[in-house]
């Protein structure tokens, strides 16, 4: 399991490259590796953009005989007030195309999000082999 603090932009690239490597080590296909890395890039970038501090945890797991990669995005940012709204495609805030959450969800096999306004957000995604 590795933990990467997202402090500057290069950490986004580092996080997604590590996720890719974890997936490569588990024998994921090119398509699946890319989906995972792209989702990690989106979610890590959110931390960089919207939270003052945060980290990404990447771990290889085994569940029901399948192997997978789980990535957790934990930040101490402002939190998301209306989770349903941000999970809708087309929602946009700030100067970006939206939080990229629905896209990241589509790229993942499992997606869960918890957020408390004023405290932070915790997102977990899993990609199964």
């Amino acid at each position, binding site marked *: 399991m590795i933990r990467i603090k997202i402090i500057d*932009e*290069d950490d986004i*690239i580092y996080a*997604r490259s590590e996720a*890719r490597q974890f997936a490569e080590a588990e024998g994921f296909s*090119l*398509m699946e590796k*890319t*989906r995972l*890395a*792209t989702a990690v*890039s*989106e979610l890590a*970038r959110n931390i960089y953009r919207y939270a003052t501090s945060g980290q990404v945890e990447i771990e290889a797991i085994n569940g029901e005989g399948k192997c997978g990669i789980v990535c957790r995005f934990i930040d101490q940012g402002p939190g998301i007030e209306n989770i349903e709204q941000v999970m809708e*495609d087309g929602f946009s805030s700030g100067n*970006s*195309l939206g939080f*990229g959450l*629905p*896209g*990241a969800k*589509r*790229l993942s096999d499992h997606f869960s999000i918890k957020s408390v306004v004023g405290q932070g957000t915790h997102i977990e995604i899993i990609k199964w082999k």
Partner: protein
Amino acid sequence: MKNIPVLKLGSILFLTVPENMNDAMAQYLEEDVLQQLHKTGAEAVVIDISSLEIIDSFMARVITETVQTTKVMGARIVVVGMSSVATITLLELGLDMSDIETAMDLESGLHKLGYRLQTIK
């Protein structure tokens, strides 16, 4: 901070997007293209993205905005070298890239811009 080199060939500008471009470099990308267009009066631009393994929404936005501003400046522009895997993830991210003209490789890109390669004997 290194700028991305913009090559000029006739009335075409070529640039290759480096693998791990970040926010700072991205600003320069669009800026450089526009400056060069203005300076040289080039008619067409080819952006090569074949070194990008991963195209997230940030990168997609950089590309789309560069394309849009180039068109506003009156030049034609084509994006070449999109990998099949990146294409699929872009669609899954739900990004609308319908405005941009793409081609599988440099030669098809030039075709689309209306140029042909000819050997001079």
